[in-house]
């Protein structure tokens, strides 16, 4: 029943992909974004050429653009901007995901809100290129949406108080777009609660005085103090689940229990392996209490007949298939740690590229910004504080009484 139920979720039906499908999807989205950038620049070029031909035209440049733009001699000599590659897009999205986590920590939201917000962002940008939707404009919207989804509702006013210079309008402006962008699939199956349940079950089994042979071997493998070891591993596992699991693509490639096992694998490889062997291995009792098993042994024929009649036939052994999957999942999560180490100047370079793509008017002297959020009047200012060193950002965010009043 468990697998059957999972296959009915939207996470399984619409948001699970094989690796090639996922990368194809990403490059298709990137191509669409690039197309829109090219279109915008073409239009800007046409406008620029028409405005240079008639120098007396009154307002060739958008009036809200208050930085003096050096009007080039000939717009046609300026090359088209270099668009972002799919991997660059992913880097940018992942960086903003880390920002989103930091933002969630300011509010001290529960980990489920954090996780949901991150997955929302990831899923949104799976189908919408950052060329068209810069993630910086969506962060607060997504976090707010996640609080509502995870039953942790804050009013917009309350929400805006904690982040300087944030207005309810800005939060709600793109809410519909984001909700539509994630296909209205608000419910996300996180491995968090499942991990909790799995550890709970494991601890209970270890604590019981059953004589299951599989459990005995598990105990042997875990050494002196099995419960202690499991608790320690669980703590580390939770850390992986609330960070690496979100930043990487494991949510698209694996089911929640597999992600949970993957995180456990990272936390304590030996434990995870032994656990999978015990639960899903050859002689697994599938977590059934040993009492039943004993009874089965005593009245051999009758009991076994009853047992097999009452219960579903045993599924084929899962472990040989599960272990490689979990290992791959763990590896994928481990790789995600690299995103944290990406130097700031690389991110800056990417963002500069994106900025150039999105704002042809600054380079051609005509045309209009491309993508959402770029039409706000105070846009240059925003741009300036856009990729500050993390420490500076943290300072403003940690201000106890919020930002200064406007």
């Amino acid at each position, binding site marked *: *029943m*468990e*697998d*059957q*139920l*999972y*296959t009915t979720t939207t996470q*399984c039906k*619409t948001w*699970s*992909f*094989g690796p090639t*499908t996922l990368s194809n*999807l990403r490059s*298709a*989205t990137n191509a*669409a*974004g690039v*197309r829109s950038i090219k279109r915008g620049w073409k239009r800007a070029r046409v406008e620029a050429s028409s405005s240079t031909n008639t120098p007396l035209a009154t307002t060739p440049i958008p009036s809200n653009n208050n930085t003096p733009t050096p009007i080039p001699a000939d717009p046609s000599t300026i090359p088209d901007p270099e668009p972002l590659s799919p991997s660059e897009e992913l880097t940018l999205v992942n960086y903003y995901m880390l920002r989103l986590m930091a933002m969630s920590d300011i509010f001290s939201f529960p980990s489920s809100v954090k996780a949901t917000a991150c997955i929302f962002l990831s899923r949104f940008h*799976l*189908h*919408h290129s950052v*060329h*068209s939707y810069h993630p910086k404009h969506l962060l607060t919207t997504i976090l707010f949406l996640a609080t509502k989804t995870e039953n942790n509702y804050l009013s917009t006013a309350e929400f805006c108080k904690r982040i300087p210079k944030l207005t309810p309008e800005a939060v709600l402006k793109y809410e519909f*777009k984001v909700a539509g*962008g994630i296909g209205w699939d608000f419910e996300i*199956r996180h491995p968090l609660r*499942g*991990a*909790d*349940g*799995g*550890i*709970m*079950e494991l601890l*209970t089994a270890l604590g019981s005085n059953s004589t299951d042979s599989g459990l005995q071997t598990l105990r042997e493998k875990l050494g002196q103090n099995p419960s202690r070891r499991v*608790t320690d591993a669980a703590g580390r596992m939770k850390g992986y689940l609330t960070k690496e699991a979100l930043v990487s693509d494991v949510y*698209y*490639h*694996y*089911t*929640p*229990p*597999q992600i*949970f096992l993957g995180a456990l694998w990272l936390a304590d490889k030996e434990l995870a392996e032994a656990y999978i062997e015990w639960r*899903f291995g050859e002689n697994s009792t*599938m*977590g*059934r*209490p040993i009492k039943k098993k004993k009874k089965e042994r005593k009245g051999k024929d009758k009991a076994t007949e009853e047992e097999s009649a009452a*219960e*579903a036939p045993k*599924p084929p052994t*899962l472990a040989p298939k*599960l272990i490689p*999957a979990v290992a791959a999942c763990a590896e994928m999560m481990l790789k995600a740690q690299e995103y944290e180490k990406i130097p700031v100047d690389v991110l800056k370079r990417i963002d500069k590229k994106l900025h150039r793509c999105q704002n042809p008017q600054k380079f051609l002297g005509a045309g209009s910004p491309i*993508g*959402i959020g*770029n*039409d706000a009047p105070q846009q240059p200012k925003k741009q300036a504080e856009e990729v500050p060193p993390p420490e500076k950002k943290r300072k403003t965010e940690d201000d106890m009484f919020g930002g200064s009043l406007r």
Partner: protein
Amino acid sequence: MPSLTTSTAAAIARARENAINRGGDADEICPVCKSSRYLNPNMRFLVNPECYHKMCESCVDRIFSQGPSQCPVVGCDKILRKQKFRKQTFEDIQVEREVDVRKRIAKTFNKRQEDFPSLKEFNDYLEEVETVTFNLLNSVDTNATEAKITAFEQSNKSSILQNAAKAAQEQQFALAQREFEKEHHRKARELENEIEASEKREKAEHKANLLKALEADNPDAEVAKVNKLARKKSSMRRENQERRARELEAARNAPAFQFMSNLNRVAEEAPPEKYDPVDGFDETNRYFMYRDRYESPWLDDTRNNKTVLAGGYLLQQYYERAVFEAFSGVGCFIEDPDIEAEEATPLGSFDTPMIDSTV
């Protein structure tokens, strides 16, 4: 009013009809000659199934006795015949028309369920018939529909005739059976009346005998004799009645009419396959079994915390949910090619760069 264009004429006709309807005296005034029932209490209204315009009998006589003529209602150019005029059955003219159309359709499309190999095909046929009827009623591609009807008629000539004959036969049988039932009821009633009368008579006789016996010298013996006689008579009578009732019942189930009782019975079909409301959903848990209690250090406080439990929080539910989620989907491997092939189709549906609309 020959100078009027058809559209204005139609509008006037509609306006007049509305006025008549609003006044609530549609039954009282003939729309053609405007004579009212007040002056002519025997006035009858007739309609012609050609166009369903209502007019009084005298108008029909006046206009159509010379032969076919145009409908006198303004804007209606149907040629009507006197022969076709009839009394309106239903108050609503739309219903009248629908009944006519359905009658006509039923004459052509008279297939039965036994003509089809399966129920589904029969249902499809019924739907087809209903579509044709709807089209005729609401004048949706009338020409095509008429052509369809004619084609059907052509191709199913023999079966239509057969079915019509069958229907007529059935009707005859039904009629005969009804007659028979009536007769049977009459006989039964007669028998009952007879029984009642004889009972009454016997009672009176018995009473008279009793009185006579009391007058005699030895009343006790006489009374006993009379009573015995009465008992014997009544038992004889009862026997007689029972026999007649049995005969009547036997006549009712006579073999001559046996087949008719089978006539309306639906043929017994194989019982349909058992309906599974959950569509094969299996409720058993494959990977685990719930326990009553799990060891969880951070939940131990909750277990004894009355402030939490008083609110109706069930720790057991959290256990179940958590353990369930720990294994829900563990056996699904997303990289399986068949799943991937399924999922490869809806790509790109979300891809809507909305640049032009937002800027």
